[in-house]
């Protein structure tokens, strides 16, 4: 009798566990892959996993967000301009698709701003004048939609850090913005499970160098 009860109980437990929706389960496993990714092929695997989810969950913007994010991160480590462009093209397609679902999502505009510097680096002389303006536009829009989004301040700080002092950049100007980003990161409450969380460690890393 006891055995039977144990079996039934454990079976029920299994059922309860299965209540966690397939979407959440899949997201959790994809998210874990992304967290552990170090090399380009691991990021691509994570992107593929998110892409599979996005094909089924047509109302969710987060899977699309992570497809784009993984591609952008990979693009920063690519040397080859053609590969870089292909990755960014794919990322842009997914940002566009996500924005159709959630046009007022601050995180998506911040992600757009994260894409531009990689595009600029391919050919600074030509792409710089075209995309620097768009970068600020995206950040401003992201800030309007949610001023508590810490990634906005992190991206602003990085942009300032990489800008020559003659143009109003440099580490001294960037430092207070990094501090503000840190503050925002500390008080950040993710709105959804799997809400973007990245940027905090990088902010702390930069602050320790300044």
């Amino acid at each position, binding site marked *: *009798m006891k*055995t*039977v009860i144990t*079996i*039934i109980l454990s*079976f029920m437990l299994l059922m309860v566990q299965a209540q966690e929706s*397939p979407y959440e389960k*899949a997201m959790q496993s994809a998210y874990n892959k992304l967290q552990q990714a170090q090399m380009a*092929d691991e990021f*691509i*695997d994570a992107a*593929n*996993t998110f*892409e*599979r*989810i996005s*094909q*089924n969950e047509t109302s969710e913007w987060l899977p699309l967000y992570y497809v784009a994010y993984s591609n952008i991160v990979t693009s920063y480590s690519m040397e*080859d*301009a*053609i590969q870089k*462009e*292909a*990755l960014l*093209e*794919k990322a842009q397609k997914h940002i566009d698709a996500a924005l159709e679902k959630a046009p007022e999502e601050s995180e998506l505009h911040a992600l757009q701003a994260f894409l531009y510097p990689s595009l600029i*680096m*391919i*050919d*600074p*002389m*030509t792409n710089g004048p*075209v995309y620097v*303006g768009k970068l600020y536009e995206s950040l401003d829009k992201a800030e309007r939609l949610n001023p508590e989004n810490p990634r906005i301040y992190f991206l602003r700080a990085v942009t300032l850090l990489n800008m*020559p002092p*003659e*143009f109003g950049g440099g580490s001294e100007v960037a430092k207070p913005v990094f501090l503000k980003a840190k503050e925002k990161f500390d008080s950040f409450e993710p709105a959804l499970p799997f809400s973007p969380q990245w940027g905090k460690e990088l902010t702390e890393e930069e602050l320790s160098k300044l």
Partner: protein
Amino acid sequence: MKPILLILLQLVFLYAQAQVKISGTVVTKPGNPVSGVNLFLQGTYDGATSDSLGRFSFTTDISGTQTLIASYVGYETQGINVEIENEDISLNVVLKEEINELDEVTINAGAFEASDTKKSVILKPLDIALTAGTNGDIYGAFGTLPGSHHVGEEGRLFVRGGESYETKSFMDGMLIGTPYFSKMPDLPTRGRFSPILFNGAVFSTGGYSAEYGQALSSIVALNTTALEPESKASVSLLSVGVQGSHATRWKNTSLALTGEYLHTGLSNKLFRQNIQWLQTPVITGSTLMFRHKTSDTGMLKSFGSFSNNNSKLLHHNFQEATLQEIGLGNTNFYFNTTWNEMLNDNWMMHAGAALNTDTENLHINEGQLFTSKNTSQLKTTFTHSSAKKITTKMGIDWIYYDYKQEINLGDSHLLSFFNNQLSAFAESELKVSRHLALKAGVRAEQNSLLQQTKIVPRVSAAVRTGKNSQLSAAYGDFFQNPADDYLKFSSRLGPEQSTHSILTWQYMEGTYTFRIEAYHKDYTDLVKFKNEFSMEPGNYTNEGSGYSKGIDIFWRNQKKFGKSDYWISYSWNDSERNYRDFKVQATPHYVSAHNFSAVYKKFFMPLNCFLSGSYSFASGRPYYNPNNADFMSDRTKNYHDASLGITHITYLFNTQTVLHLVVNNVFGFNNIYGYSYSNLPDESGTYIAQPITPVSKRMAVFLISFQL
């Protein structure tokens, strides 16, 4: 209790049994494994990424007929039906490469392309504006590319043994009738339009598309920018005048205006000139650019420009041994409107209208030559693309040209003619694979003036010869009406003709581009005459002919992130003609056998300075020496020029400021472009020579520009 246990066990067993493993490998057509491919069952989360050997494996719970999707950037997405029952499935997936712009072959024989948006181009428009020695002139910049001859006293493009009028210019597909400012004798001119108006350009040194006609040697096709990115204004002060611009941007519309007033008075004082100006050259000009996005895929562009320039000088006419007062007044108006729209998923339409009027008033002492040229054009093209494999472009083009010249030099003449030209073309490009592209076109043209209809073929192809290299070839027949200077005297002439054969090999890897091109051109039906400026019947004929052959080499290493960037061009040309009043076949005066140019640019980050240097070399050019019985056998000495440009970006008065300085011929080489000989010999029977030299040895232009 036992039955319950059994059922539970069965359930577990069933559950386990339903898990089917799907595995396999992904390869390309030739059998190379592909990593990073996303493989999954459509409508499920079940899937995997292929590893470095192309292997993949995943399990699934579902059964029945399912579709396995394989997708990867650069490859066509595959859908494979799989029947999932109880057994594991193992299968091979073969991916087909998607033909896209990234690394497919492009037919580029003869063509140099500059573009902001395309990926496989050699030059960016900014390269043109910032190249030292070109004075911000589009034609000057193309002069640093292989295939062009350096002809200092002209300032126009001379391409591969062809006269300057054999190169035609187009803006957004519409003809620019008078692309250069009017020209004083022996003084160089320059292009009318600033390079910053354009975001793309093609300089084709031969074998170009059937879309373009009436050009024997070369075309320059310029594409104007789309919507202005933002509202802005700028004011520039130059050592030779002032320029201003203002742009306004609305959601789907933009309007940009520019104006300039150039006066070389100050500059002429600073750099001593071997010319006596009676009236300092003054140019006033303005442009207007209107852009309107008519739909997601439609764009309406209007461009208008007006310019007026005046100057007067004392010309030493050595041939006639007199001093002449030469005055030049030129008024030019150019307007075009084009509209692009996707009619549906496959058809794109391009419609355009252009208008150009140019009046030139040339005074020689008391005499006067008044010339007016009017061009009107209507053009429509349709482009059909089907599944990325075949692209067909066809169109019709109507050009009305009207030429009038009133001559009052002692006696008066009125020379005039007009021409109605109707042309049609069709051209198809077939992308057989990522490795092979073929293109064939035909152009038909009817001219009312010459009463001729001509149909000519154009063919080209490109084949990939390796991961980074490709071979491209082009062949075509080209023809062009004789120059105005002949047509005004006689319309009983036929078009001049040329045949181009071109073979190009290009290697592009990372930041490097290497290109070598061999060509051969045959010229027939060139205009010959017994006497220049004679209306006598039979004076002008089409009996001339010639050839031109050569090799062009181009090397560029463009490092990213503002590091050094340089390009080197070398051209060898061998060409001879028997045309005009030549007694025998000879190399014309504008042809230099060897042309070399090197351009170097570097951005110095800590100083915010952009440095550009260029060096040009041209071997000696032939000139006619009446003392030498051997026609056109004398050569001038070699030509050298080293130029330097510095651009500094800073903040002044709280606005972004650009300081720019260019110095031409830094080392002061004494260059000689040719010689004029007196018409009559002196007492000893020899004809006296006078060298034709640059106006000033060195020249510098300074600019300061404020972004408001």
